[in-house]
């Protein structure tokens, strides 16, 4: 058993967990934050993407104990003050989701992508960098549109803010 403490969505949390517990299990089962999803068991689908210390991470690939002391953001922590994050708003505006299961991971990956590229994203880059997230509903068409639109609206300001 391991004792872990971390900051999740701005709140300090701690708990005891088995050494083998994955970060995604800790988030879902111990913290009850069920927006982070498990869609596969080989770290291929990306439904579980969260941010750990500002970087997009597949939370099924990391042990909860490895995240000890980290600053974690999940989909539940993305909107602030009742306002949707621009990427969340863009997904809705462009119908970038259908069943919604891959969506939290998709949005967390997109936020990370935009924070790295700022407003300079193009379709080719978005498609290449969504490699780690599988969506079975949308054919990606509207997801790509949403990410590009959010990137252009957030621009370089978002890049600085994220850093």
């Amino acid at each position, binding site marked *: 058993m391991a004792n872990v403490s971390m900051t999740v969505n701005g709140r300090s949390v701690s708990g005891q967990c088995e050494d083998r517990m994955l970060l995604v299990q800790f988030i*879902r089962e111990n913290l009850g934050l069920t927006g982070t999803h*498990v869609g596969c*068991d*080989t770290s291929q689908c990306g439904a579980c993407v969260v941010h750990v210390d500002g970087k997009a991470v597949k939370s099924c690939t990391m042990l909860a104990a490895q995240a000890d002391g980290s600053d974690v953001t999940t989909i539940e922590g993305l909107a602030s003050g009742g306002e*949707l994050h621009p990427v969340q708003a863009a997904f809705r505006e462009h119908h970038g*989701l259908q*069943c*919604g299961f891959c969506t939290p991971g998709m949005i967390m990956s997109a936020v990370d992508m935009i924070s790295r590229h700022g407003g300079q994203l193009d379709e080719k880059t978005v498609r290449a960098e969504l490699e780690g997230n599988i969506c079975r509903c*949308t054919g*990606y068409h509207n997801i790509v549109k949403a990410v590009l639109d959010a990137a252009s609206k957030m621009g370089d300001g978002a890049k600085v803010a994220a850093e």
Partner: protein
Amino acid sequence: MGMEGIGARVARKEDKRFITGKGRYTDDMVVPGMKHAHFVRSPHAHAKIKSIDTSAAEKMPGVISILNGAQLTEDGIGNIICGWMIHSKDGSPMNMGAWRPLAQDTVRYVGDAVAIVVADSKAQARDAAEAVVVDYETLPVVTSAVDALKDGAPQLHPEAKNNQIFDWEIGDAAATDAAIASAAHVTEMKIVNNRLVPNPMEPRAALGVYDDSDEHYTLWTTSQNPHVARLVLSAFYNVAPENKLRVIAPDVGGGFGSKIYIYPEEIVCLWASKRTGVPVKWNCDRTEAFLTDAHGRDHESTIKMAFDADNNITGFKVDTIANLGAYMSLFSSSVPTYLYATLLSGQYAIPAIHANVRTVYTNTVPVDAYRGAGRPEACYLLERVLETAARELGVTPAALRRQNFIREFPYQTPVIMCYDAGDFDASLDAAMTAIDYDGFPARRAEAESRGKKRGIGISCYIEACGIAPSAAVGSLGAGVGLWESAEVRVNAVGTIEVLTGSHSHGQGHETTFSQLVAERFGVGMDSVSIVHGDTDKVQMGMGTYGSRSGAVGMSAIVKALDKVETKAKKIAAHLMEADESDIVIENGELKVAGTDKSVPWFQMALAAYTAHNLPEGMEPGLKEGAFYDPSNFTFPAGTYICEVEVDPDTGKTTVVDFVAADDFGKIINPMIVEGQVHGGVAQGIGQALLEGTHYDAETGQLLTASYMDYTMPRADDLPSFKVSTTETVCPSNPLGIKGCGEAGAIGSPPALINAITDAIGNNDLTMPATPERVWAALRSAQ
């Protein structure tokens, strides 16, 4: 058209909870005292179970109970059934072997469930499952349907001699043979439709809760049709009486057909909750999903198409062997029969059609409906053979299709279907314009200058949706009626709840159904709520599949809205001392036409519930229900054209352009419809280029059982699509809508393969057209 009414491109109401992580899927559910399940599954494709030893596993930490098939039998739990009876052409009923929810005596595919372990945590249940010792005596294995039919093949079920489930036919064999014998030209092909795994991103899950205080059962499950689940669980499997069983399908993360059926895990979790006295939750790993979710397609067909000297199609003959896997799933028998062979006329006037279909047991996962269900298989045959025939006859593929299009409606095909409306030229024209068909030779030349092979491929599909008239399907063997139900409840303050038997798992019903109500009463969408997926709230329904929620589900809502409107007008007329025939509803008010008298919608609603001043004899309240049984299938149709570039050095195909021109009849929300097409096309491109399910023929091991082995389409594999719609109104339902959920997956595979075979100059190519296969086909063409 209002801002939120029919035809408006309204952003979805349901999105906010999904984009903020507040969606509630089955695996998110937690109930007091809940424990976790893991299934012990067969590692062998075919074996006798000699013994099951749980003694060591039962002592493992956290283990509460380990249950097997013998206990299931003790409690009288029934076999899993197929709900559609098909008779062979000799009149004999289909040969259905027994499918126990937990295998007893024999396992028949890798992943067949043998026992369930219930423990404090999922990890403990998994640990203990690994410690269960099952002594198997392995048996010979067969995974190919063609091989399974051969004399001497391993036999799966004693009920099915030579593994044949049925040998069925449709159409006129003699007329079709005569057409072929007298034809000026016959195009012959052997075509394989590759087996697929549906892969909704949410893995299946089930949470069974038995409450002994009132002997009541609740099942949370990832289902596309919770009411049918309840019906089958109570009427056939003897798990719980219908009035004591509540089935809830909350947010469901995609289905594509694979969540229509009842699976062993749902039955067993519910039963295990009673046996153990604790709520039992199971959620599926992805590899477990590959091993146990019903697969799709898997046909091998020999076809002949006959033409006269003027290139008119005179006959079409099809001989299909369909692999149904180790057991018959709920709708498995209908897919390669009435959902398949009845669409073999396509968009074409074909005087004589005959199809023979043999279905076969093999040591593989059961096969059932997957997005399109039978129609993609029919479309693939037709659109491949037409493209091939055009090449053989030396005419353009577009011209050959256009020459043979059906243009007069209604059109009775030789295979049951009667098409009610369509304009196939319009969608062919729209697609050819959108892709600049005439400019293709120049683009091909340009690609050649870069050392690439370019090809273009057409597919003109038709499908039958809105499944289906109850009496018609009943006469063909269906075990249920396929109507839909709706209830419209106007609250005292005028807000409206619509209860529907449809189920939304990505299709946006909360939005489109609300648009329908907003249009009708001029109220805001926010004052409309859609209730679905809970058998305690909605009395009965048939769920969502076959693109039926619009054509059938919304039509039921329209019928209920009609009744509400009639009563609302009576109340308003009474309040304003007017004639009810003079009342019109506009912008949230009931007005007396031609006057300035009006009553706000909410005031009328309040009057219905205060009941202080209602017409003589009128019951208080404003709540109406309706059942809608369709009079015909609906027939979405369209043309897809795909342009590809093949790298001759690597065999890699790149989709450079893809256009879809669909006729879905009336459209409620174009944004949602386009999204459905995008998703369907992506699954079709997946089938054509990437996705293939491979079993080891000797051992029956599934070689493609994870996302590292089974190639799911990713963003980088796909282009942006150009989609458009033309419209012929469907005459058989009140909204004129046809359905859009499956079209993309039906129309796109032949467009892709036609394009690649055009590019490489070799027609001998099977799906998925992997770089290796394309490279080999290119070499053999040279």
